[in-house]
């Protein structure tokens, strides 16, 4: 069975911890689902099972960080971001403590868990806090790149990881990069969204529509300069993300680069989430590869979206 990114995170962290005694892990009683198990088994003396008490867990981690440790806090993204938002705001963001939050099972694809366990606006919450670094890796190489970047700095961070295991992406990891050749029509995506975009891109190519794919795992601080340079050559820009269309990558790019025209594809803001297979959910809500490709083809024919050079 393929590992989730959260498993890779726990595993890689336990490898990095050999050389860095400051690294420690806290978990909110989901270690066998959220990846913390790999660290817990290797470094039991540096692992704290904080119980089903996320608010306390985040603040405990902040106290540890203030004494020189590098705590990584594992749970589902929903419980970290929503249950502990005030603790993240005060103890991490305002207090500038280098705690990393590893949120698994984010986005809208929560399988049988359904709406309570998904995280549909977590990027909006985390990216709008001062001092937070936010990453939504698209594969294991991205994840490791993000982990090294976080450990090289001294700021709090949020790693947004999906429930579903992800295949490797082509090319070398970077905060923001083209996968394949740049084109006038471009899909911009992050995290699981990049895999949805790849599926749509393939269908569009087969239909004779060349579409570029710009993958942006670094959400905050947004690599606005790289994005701006890349998108300058593009005529039509679609953002595809496993997040509400408001408050995520599309909104952040639109805010940072007001002159671009973004067509956002994500979860509708009036949807709360529900149980179901990834395929059923994505298909029903228009984010399956075929639905995305069909919608994009239709939107490309609309004169409103034609040749919007930024």
């Amino acid at each position, binding site marked *: 069975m393929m590992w989730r990114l959260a498993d890779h995170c726990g595993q890689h962290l336990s490898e990095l911890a050999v050389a860095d005694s400051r690294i420690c892990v806290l978990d909110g009683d989901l270690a066998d689902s959220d990846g913390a198990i790999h660290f817990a088994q290797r470094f039991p003396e540096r692992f704290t099972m904080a119980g089903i008490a996320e608010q306390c867990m985040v603040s405990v981690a902040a*106290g540890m960080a203030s004494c020189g440790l590098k705590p990584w806090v594992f749970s589902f993204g929903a419980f970290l971001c929503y249950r502990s938002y005030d603790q993240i705001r005060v103890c991490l963001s305002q207090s500038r403590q280098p705690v990393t939050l590893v949120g698994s099972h984010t986005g809208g694809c929560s399988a049988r868990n359904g709406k309570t366990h998904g995280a549909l606006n977590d990027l909006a919450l985390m990216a709008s806090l001062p001092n937070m670094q936010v990453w939504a890796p698209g594969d294991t190489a991205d994840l490791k790149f993000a982990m090294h970047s976080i450990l090289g700095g001294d700021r709090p961070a949020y790693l947004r990881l999906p429930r579903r295991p992800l295949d490797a992406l082509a090319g070398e990891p970077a905060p923001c990069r083209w996968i394949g050749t740049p084109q006038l029509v471009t899909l911009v995506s992050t995290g699981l969204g990049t895999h949805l975009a790849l599926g749509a891109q393939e269908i569009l190519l087969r239909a004779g529509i060349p579409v570029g794919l710009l993958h942006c795992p670094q959400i905050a601080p947004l690599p606005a300069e790289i994005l701006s340079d890349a998108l300058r050559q593009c005529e039509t820009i679609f953002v595809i993300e496993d997040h509400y269309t408001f408050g995520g990558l599309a909104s952040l790019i639109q805010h940072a680069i007001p002159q671009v025209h973004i067509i956002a594809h994500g979860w509708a803001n009036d949807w709360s989430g529900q149980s179901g297979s990834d395929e059923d959910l994505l298909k029903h809500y228009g984010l399956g590869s075929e639905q995305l490709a069909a919608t994009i083809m239709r939107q490309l024919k609309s004169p409103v979206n034609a040749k919007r050079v930024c």
Partner: protein
Amino acid sequence: MRSEIVEALYACGGGHYGGSLSVLDLTLILYRRILQISADNPRDPQRDRFILSKGHSAMALYAVLRRIFFFEYPLSSYGQFGSPLEGHPDMTALPGIDFSTGSLGQGLSVGLGMALALHPTGQRTWVVLGDGECQEGQVWEAAMLAARYGVERLHAVIDYNKFQEWGWSQSANVNTQPLENLSQKWSAFGWRVFEVDGHDHDALTDTFRQAMETKGQPSVVIAQTVKGKGFPLIEADPIRFHCATLSPEEHQQLTNGKL
């Protein structure tokens, strides 16, 4: 120091008289007689840690830190633009603040994290909470976790002044105390419990030292205090003086010992 606090709060337009005056003695005794710290090196990694979890009583902490030479900023700059004496203690603004507080209920968890991190080197962590603050669920999350791990160098101190900002003072047929059966609650959560007169300096010193002898479990000192201690006007109206502004006449009379 009580006069300094009252003068400074008046000068900066009012503030949390009641809680600052109730927490002052125990804060002073911790800093003067218990904490292993140095004003010359407020960020010494080897120091004991102190968290004022009830951050709205910041004026008391500032008065103590100034008295023991942590800084020379005037207390009257409290909460003014550009002053490191933020309205609630801010570790990014003022050396000597071990952790930022203000949003109630978080300090004990932070202190637990510090105590866990400092375990190998033996420093102690002291966290001062309000009784009203103990209504926050996170306090009890931390209480459970600290007891589970037997964190003996974590010490909580409750400023048990028996009032909160508004509380249930106007409610009929409801217990109006911020928290009932404090001692039983902490004890049931696995803490060693001490009780003391929160304005008796020698008793506070002895009790804090006894708490430091605790083995295998965290300890809590319940300090019986008076909201607004030292000023009859304030003691008599703890609801108004949780956070209040005095008229010039009231301030004059207060400082002349007439109120």
